[in-house]
């Protein structure tokens, strides 16, 4: 009997962009408001992007394509990108064509393109049609256990945490004031004694496609 051999490279990525760096061009989150639509409802789509030149900001996609199924339309209006939920009858027809149960939500993937100072960025987002849902609330933050003011003021060894974290939510932190430890958890520590002023952000996701974020100025003293 052959033995399973598993191999892991024990190396770090010292000189490549880290997932928490706000200076690296990337899509931070795609938000539909709301994330799941009842029949005939209208949802709005926007994208949180960042890059070295302009930092984090809401951006309007240059293109959104509905990959499947047919009958779902996304349009660009003066107010931004909108998605129109089909009627109850149309949704029933889509369910039937896909072989879904009568009460199942129809999950539709969207292919999104958004421009950054470093070129086009590609993202994918799904929207549920059938039962309405809401995005989670934007988090509030604690610095070393105390509520933050209008900005995060921290020391190099401080911790910053989401107030009242929820186990069902996932968290992703971003920073332009130095390295972060624990950036996929509800609390982070700074890991850079030379840090100064910049931005600190956290994106919150639920398991149904809902998303919210909080981005704040931050000053980290050595």
């Amino acid at each position, binding site marked *: *009997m*052959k*033995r*399973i*051999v*598993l*191999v*892991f*490279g*024990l*190396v*770090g*990525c010292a*000189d*490549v*962009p*880290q*997932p928490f760096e706000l200076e*690296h061009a*990337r*899509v931070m*989150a*795609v938000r539909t408001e709301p994330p799941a639509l009842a029949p005939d409802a209208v949802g709005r789509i926007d994208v949180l992007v960042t890059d070295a030149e302009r930092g984090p900001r809401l951006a309007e996609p240059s293109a959104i394509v509905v990959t499947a199924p047919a009958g779902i339309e996304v349009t660009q209006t003066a107010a931004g990108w909108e998605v129109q939920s089909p009627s109850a009858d149309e949704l029933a027809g889509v369910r039937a064509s896909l072989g879904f149960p009568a009460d199942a939500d129809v999950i539709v993937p969207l*292919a999104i393109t958004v421009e950054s100072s470093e070129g086009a*960025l*590609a*993202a*994918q*987002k*799904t929207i549920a049609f059938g039962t309405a849902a809401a995005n989670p609330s934007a988090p509030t933050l604690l610095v070393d256990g105390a509520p933050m003011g209008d900005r995060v003021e921290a020391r190099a060894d401080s911790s910053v945490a989401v107030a009242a974290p929820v186990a069902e939510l*996932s968290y*992703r932190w971003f920073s332009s004031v130095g390295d972060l*430890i*624990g*950036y*996929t*958890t509800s609390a982070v520590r700074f890991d850079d004694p030379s840090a100064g002023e910049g931005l600190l952000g956290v*994106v919150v*996701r639920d398991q149904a*496609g809902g*998303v919210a974020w909080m981005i704040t100025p931050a000053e980290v003293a050595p």
Partner: protein
Amino acid sequence: MCTGVAFADTEAIRGRVLDDATGQPLPGVTVYGESDEAAVTDESGEFVLPGTPLAVTVIEGSYEPVVVPVTGRLEIRLVARPEGAEVIEIVGESRAATPGAVTIDRQQLTTIPGARGDVLSGIKNLPGIANNGSLTPLSSGLIIRGASPESSRILVDGFEIPILYHFLGVQSVLPTEMLGNVEYLPGTFGTSYGRASAGIVAATSRETPTETSAFAELSFINVAGLVQGPIGKRAGYAVAARRSVIDAILPAVIPSDSGLNFTAYPRYYDYQGKATYQPTDRWSLQAFVFGSDDGVELVTDRDNAADPVATGSFVNTASFTRGIASARYRRPGLDMKHAISAYTDTNHFTVGRERYLLLDRLGIATRSETIWDPTGWLRLTVGAESDLTRTDFDIKFTRPPREGDPRGPNFTNDALIVATGAATSRDLAGWASATAYPIPSLEITAGARVDAYLRNDVVEVQPRGQAAFTVTDGSTIRAAAGTYTRPAQNLDQGLQADLRPETAHQFSVGVEQRLLSSVTFRGTAFYNRLSDLIVLPADRRDPTSLGGYENLGSGSVRGVEMLLQARTEKVFGWLAYTGAIATRRDADGMPERRFDYDQTHNLIAVASVQIDPRWRVGGRFQLTTGRPYTPVMGAVYQSDIDSYLPMYGAPNSQRVDVQHQLDLRVDRTWTFDRWKLAAYLDISNVYVNAAAIDYQYNFDYSQRTALTSLPILPSFGVRGEL
């Protein structure tokens, strides 16, 4: 190195003994049969040995001892033993040697620079075996003729061992001192071996010595010791053990900012014990127990955004123990071997807190083979083996990587195998072959092997044949062909009982030519046609892919192997080249692509010089094509799961850097009245060529860094020997 091809009449074996370096006949040399027969060579090196033994043995003071099968006209070439070499070395030619088969003596293999004295590491320098430093840098197996390690088998006394190398691949699980012959068969092997669709490495445990000896050794790699000797006139013993010292060295070389904290540093140990007893001149009994244990546990505090579940700890413990009891009966014209073996094999792997793979195996196996030589011109071989293995498993783990997979497992996003239970595999096999010598210079072997993979409810009949024609003295042509299968037992394929074995139809032709008295050349061309390759058509992220393996793949491996060997009294060396192309289709209509283990060119040059009785120096240079990999063309951000999905180019359409490195070794020996002290310095990759062997991508696949081979690996050791 000895060459021997047989000539036998009905009552006696005739032959000649020569010095391999000079080609001159050796008078006064004693040639032994299998019981009490013996003959002494005359002034022309000629001898006549009464009886019809299957093999003859020559033990002559200043030469390497040899055992030569009697398979035609007999010419025995003795190689002078280097001063200071170990005394007991037996080198034999494989029965019905196939094109490409190589047997090189242990003394050469252990002094190859870079092998660190390990004979099973030294065999990587033979043609047909890939430079796995670039293909599977931490692999525990061998890549033979472009096939995955799982397609070949490593046998010890006829029974398989689950791994060949300890963690990081720097040392094999069996020390050189416990091994007798190592037979390397890269393909088209005979009916005695099965359940492999590529090659065979068959090691035999060493005969216990007639004199008591011992050694103790300390090196950068491990600490080792051995005691062996006779018990009375008919029994003997050998006991050995090793323990790694790498866990004492790693803390000094791992950067403090690596983010890695070892709870238990990588460590291994292995152990061997053997006892032999010869109740009569014709019966010999032996018991051999050996095993190994590897373990590592580490903690990383670095976040892993692409695979959060993999953050935290990695724990791997792996061990096996095998015990073999065997009996052998030999008389002129008859050789019977019967063996039974029991083994345990444990492999536990945990990643973070939520992923684990716990496998515990327990098995029993038997193997019997009888060789009957009734006439002197016809030899018959029949054999049978069985293997019963129970595997207890407790698994919550992602699927392992597949052949051609552009990425490793993702413990967070890949579909999981969640299973607890036990599975039993029952394999039976039988084989028969006949070797005939219609004329003294021609040897023809034909036979068939039947493997019954009962768990898969499959019976495979595999015809095989080999032929060797001695054109002139020192010039032999060989050809072989056969069908070979291996069952679906690798990785999680073993959980799926409805798979057929992978099949290889192998063909090879070769030539062996003595160019000078001390220089020989072997060349082989081979073609392996592969079918029923097991593939997983679905994506690993898809939970419906579980249990979804199918026998859809096909492919081929074709190439040439060349080995130019030179050996004189003080110098040995060789130039080995393998050129091969290994391609496959994952299903009919799919595009052809390179195998993961395709290595187009592999050139190895080895040289070692005994300067005087105290000093030996050697060098080794290797130049190989980089491994294939699948390029990343871009990535799409998956907003719902906060992860990037890479977009790949054509599978295995690009290659990493060409690999090349130089290894050097210096041995110094001090000889005292009662004991001997030896020291060696073995430096791998002397000019610090840290070539890329793979690429690791950052979180959004926008940049990559190279995983490199070890930049330099010095190893120093001292050894005291009684």
